[in-house]
């Protein structure tokens, strides 16, 4: 564990309350930013757009998805019959790009943004230590992952309840579950989606420690996201796919099977934990050894 080595004799071992305070102030700074609010606003708008589009398309009684099967985001065919499915559709629609992009922006900005604004050294003057600051930044990013996912889910639930009927739902295996259990599954799915984003959050944080330009870090993270998504589509790279952080993202849909198929879900969690460990420790190695000039 390394300190900022400011020579401050007091508070060598800050109390846990202290880092909680740091986390709280970080959260407040992040969520009060206009940029963050705008990102969350865009995310909240996606389910509204999807919901209205489905409503208009099916206004004449034709089923969504064209009946051909499998076009559009997952679950879209069921949305008209049960508004709860809009939650799943919205998450399936935002997970490939909107959600990770928002996380990439927040994570990429975490260290580099402070360095860019010249506030990083002030943060380090406080007797928190670099490791603690980094952990706080990562925790803040994870909270943002969860918040962003919940914003999409809640917005979808609200739109779904307004535009479509709610009630018992049919799992994709064809069995029926009650509305309460359906809500429970929706919450589990939101958690699974949020957990899917921890890998790119760690990656973004690492990139953020490499540069002093917030914009560069965000652009790199989002660029990496797009690159990985493209690589995941190339069949010749089949052997590589299970190690790409986005490969098991859509496994959250397995929570809608009866019984739940855990294989890919656990693989996804393991992969995200691996990315978090590798890039988290790389970020630590870089950040604690870095010359802070700004």
């Amino acid at each position, binding site marked *: 564990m*390394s300190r900022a080595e400011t020579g401050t004799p007091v508070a060598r071992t800050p109390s846990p309350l202290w880092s909680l305070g740091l986390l709280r102030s970080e959260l407040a700074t992040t969520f009060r930013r206009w940029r963050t609010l705008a990102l969350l606003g865009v995310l909240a708008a996606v389910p509204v757009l999807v919901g209205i589009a489905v409503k208009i398309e099916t206004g004449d009684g034709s089923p969504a998805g064209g009946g051909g099967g499998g076009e559009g985001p997952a679950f879209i065919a069921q949305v008209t019959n049960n508004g709860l499915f809009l939650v799943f559709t919205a998450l399936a629609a935002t997970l490939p790009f909107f959600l990770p992009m928002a996380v990439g922006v927040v994570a990429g900005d975490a260290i580099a943004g402070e360095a860019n604004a010249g506030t990083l050294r002030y943060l380090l003057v406080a007797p928190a230590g670099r490791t603690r600051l980094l952990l706080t930044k990562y925790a803040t990013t994870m909270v943002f992952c969860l918040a962003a996912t919940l914003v999409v889910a809640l917005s979808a639930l609200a739109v779904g309840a307004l535009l479509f009927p709610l009630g018992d739902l049919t799992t994709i295996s064809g069995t*029926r579950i009650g509305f309460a259990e359906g809500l429970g599954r929706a919450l589990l799915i939101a958690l699974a989606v949020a957990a899917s984003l921890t890998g790119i959050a760690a990656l973004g944080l690492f990139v953020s420690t490499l540069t002093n330009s917030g914009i560069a870090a965000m652009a790199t993270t989002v660029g990496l996201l797009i690159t990985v998504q493209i690589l995941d589509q190339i069949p010749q790279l089949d052997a590589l796919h299970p190690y790409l952080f986005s490969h098991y993202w859509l496994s959250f*849909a397995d929570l809608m099977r009866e019984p739940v*198929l855990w294989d890919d879900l656990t693989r996804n969690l393991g992969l995200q934990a*691996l990315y978090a460990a590798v890039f988290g420790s790389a970020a630590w190695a870089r950040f604690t050894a870095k010359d802070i000039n700004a």
Partner: protein
Amino acid sequence: MGPYESDDSTTARRRKAARYVVPVAVVGVAAGTIGLVPALADSGSPDLPKITAEQLVQKIAESDVQRLSGTVKITTDLGLPDLGGLEGALGGAGAPGGEGDGSAADPSAKLTELATGTHTLRVAADGPDRQRLSVLEDAAEYSLIHNGKDVWGYDSASNEVFHGTADDAGQHTGESPATPKDFAEQALKAVDDTTSVTVDGTAQVAGRDAYKLLIEPRQSGSTVGAISIAVDAKTGLPLKFTLTPASGGAAVIDAGFTRISYARPDAATFDFTPPKGAKVTEESEAGRPVTPQEEKDLAKGLEETFGKGAAGSEGAKGAEGPEGMKVIGEGWTSVAVLGTGESIPGGIPGGDEVGGDLGGFLDSLGDRVKGDFGSGTVFKTRLINALITDDGTVYAGAVTKEALVKAAESER
């Protein structure tokens, strides 16, 4: 450490570099775990009492597993070009009455998709009246549920339902033609004096101890190299079926349980009510024969797709085959002959029938051959080869091109 501590800059730099050992170590540990875990999980061959091939075949025949649930992984690599939707369309057209306005939940169209690629299936059974088979897709699932009199097909991607009835509970076996058991039964039908059957050690499949039964054709000219069946040592249920082609390479068919439980599945597993707003197609509306028959056709269709080889002497029972079909030869090298105008197994129409540009395209997929029978085109896959002569006769079987030409010549 802090930048202003660098009075001894070499030490400081070394310490900084040392930190990167942590992420590297994490990668190393992860790689080691990924490499080791499957090796440990593959716990080799369990010790089981010796058993003869006859006893093992007997065990399979006597096996009476009524209740099970599990996950089956099936990989088929027939060496067909990946035609995507086109192939599905052809397969659908090959099925009887397939031209009826298709419901996405129609079993015949859906299960033909199993003929290529890798699929994960979930199966559950509770007695002869209640079975279900689900094909797991990305964020969607196709389920075929048989519960008493009803047979439901549900396609979650399109939210469409197919409904049929099983009139005679006995007649509708509901057995999916995709489990290792179905393949094994077909393979065992082929066992005769042209076949060598041996017990090839033991293995662990889906956490169960199993014997491995090895079936090899003795005749030359067959494209089937070997069939390996892993049989549950306790219950006699075939757990894994692997068909390797004589030409070597990856298995043509590899179907095996990855998870199995012999406990009674939850009763709710077999309940199905069409979801609100789902498009329901009744089998009578679809203008087709009833489902039990259709399921049989399906099984047959899959057999045909997967080969007379897997079915072996199936071909020898020509009387049961589609009308107009004749069989030359016996055992593994039997070749089916079909006249003109009949439906063609495998759904590959001859170039002549299609005519025009598409006909030329189809011809370009095969090899032109000449013989006493005139000339024709050989369409090849890794298992099944078919010779379509210019006068429209089709010779098909799990035999090499040479054997096919010879069969066609002997016919004249």
